[in-house]
């Protein structure tokens, strides 16, 4: 549906987007994840044809955004980071304008009514946009993107600045839209992306640092699994015994606790489960396990590590 190939955008010496390639299948919800200034908005602006790329191509349903801008743009609904609202218009008049601007061929009144109902602004039609709260403005922006039922929806940080209730509503909306549309949406909130998206692309400093299905993501990128333990007994003996277990790559004592116990972390290989072995080993040397917690590297940790490792330090020099 959306095909992006070796997209690069340079502003003078600054490379905002650096050789990005990916494709999105019909009906897929793709999350675009990255810190501020990573190049998310720039990429989205290029996909929607607002700015051009320095090199690389974007095709929407077979239409190149530069060669066939009209056909390509008719297939996209775009909600930029700041909703493009004419604040002196009423909601309905604004949507009517956008309807004409986008050359939608559906019955005008019915379609606008339907879209307004969908984003829950049905009763706000006669309000002037200026006087609406931020949550409602965001929804009107959403409505604008939905006009004409475009097969591709591109949403740039649609939940920023909303209160928790509104965030949940918008998330539900995106999820329900994902059934009929191809959705690309960006965020710097990891939990949000992992909750809604089928697939996540992590982007940092203009480069893609990870591209995987949501549930595979943490497994794909973290080679090590971790076990954190609190064990009673003499530390050297415990450490020596733990190291003997097959699959263990490293044992670290974090600190002593009261009552002769200590806290350890054990790194082990991805495809082995060492919890039973740890249990029986500790029974053998008579050191009771007080606490055992297995933890994959959380998405947050992984995200921070990825954006630091591969992209270097993050900064806000471009957006």
């Amino acid at each position: 549906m959306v095909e992006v190939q070796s997209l690069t955008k340079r502003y003078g010496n600054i490379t905002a987007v650096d050789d990005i390639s990916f494709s999105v299948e019909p009906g897929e919800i793709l999350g675009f994840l990255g810190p501020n200034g990573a190049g998310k908005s720039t990429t989205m602006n290029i996909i929607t044809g607002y700015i051009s790329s320095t090199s690389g191509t974007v095709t929407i349903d077979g239409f190149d955004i530069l060669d066939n801008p009209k056909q390509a743009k008719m297939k996209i609904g775009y909600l930029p980071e700041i909703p493009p609202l004419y604040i002196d218009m009423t909601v309905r008049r604004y949507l009517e304008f956008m309807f004409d601007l986008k050359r939608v061929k559906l019955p005008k009144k019915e379609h606008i009514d339907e879209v307004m109902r969908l984003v829950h602004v049905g009763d706000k039609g006669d309000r002037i946009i200026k006087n609406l709260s931020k949550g409602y403005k965001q929804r009107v922006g959403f409505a604008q993107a939905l006009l004409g039922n475009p097969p591709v929806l591109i949403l740039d940080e649609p939940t920023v600045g909303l209160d928790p209730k509104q965030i949940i509503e918008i998330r539900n909306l995106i999820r329900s839209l994902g059934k009929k549309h191809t959705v690309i949406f960006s965020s710097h909130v990891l939990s949000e992306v992992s909750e809604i998206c089928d697939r996540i692309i992590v982007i940092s400093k203009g480069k893609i640092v990870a591209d995987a299905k949501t549930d595979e993501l943490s497994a794909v990128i973290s080679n090590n699994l971790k076990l954190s333990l609190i064990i009673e007994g003499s530390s050297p003996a415990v450490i020596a015994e733990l190291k003997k277990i097959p699959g263990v790559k490293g044992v670290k004592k974090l600190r002593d606790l009261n009552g002769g116990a200590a806290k350890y972390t054990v790194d082990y290989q991805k495809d082995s489960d060492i919890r039973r072995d740890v249990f029986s080993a500790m029974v053998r040397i008579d050191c009771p396990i007080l606490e055992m917690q297995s933890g994959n590297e959380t998405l947050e940790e992984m995200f921070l590590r990825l954006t630091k490792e591969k992209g270097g330090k993050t900064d806000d020099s471009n957006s």
Partner: protein
Amino acid sequence: MTAILKRELSSYFQSATAYVVMGVYFFFSGMFFYLYCFRGNSANLSYVYANMFYIIMFIIPIITMKTFSEEKRQKTDQALFTSPTSITGIVIGKFLGSFVLYTICCSIFLLYAVVISFFAQPQWSVVLCTFLGLLLLGGAFIAINVFISALTESMIVAAVSGMAVGLLIDMMTYFISMISISWISDLLEKINFINYYQNFTYGVLSITDVVFFLSVAALFLFFTVRILEKRRWS
């Protein structure tokens, strides 16, 4: 294009802009009309038209200052340029929006001619010819100001620069008389708006004058399209 035109006009008429602009235009044209035609006891509108040049120089930048600068500042240009409407269509829609408001302002002159017709026989050929000249001059100047608006994010900057350009055009005749290098003064003479406009106020309709204003308008609308395109590529 029609969507943009409709939106421009509704934005003028739903805010105070249209009414203030029309009010100022009607007030000053009415004042000139009163001074030259009633006090001067004349059925000749030429002087009134000639003086309208100054009013236009101030009114038009006010009409056009928002066209592109405000879109950019409010980021609504993202909606425009990601829509299937072409940039040329957007620019022409914006231009026409301003031009329609300007035409409404200018149509007061037809009313003045009707008022005169109660007292004397106005020269309808002169009246209509000058009316056309006024529209063409305005069209060219609107195109220049739409271009200026596309250059900046601030509508104040757009308006003030537009007025400065207007004053420069207005004072062109003085500049020309001050320049002694003949090829420069000849060149400036060729682009002196007043020369072309004055012929209309005498009731002379020449194809040169019409083509001059039409080409200025077309040229600056083309520049506007280019500058908006260029921004996408930089």
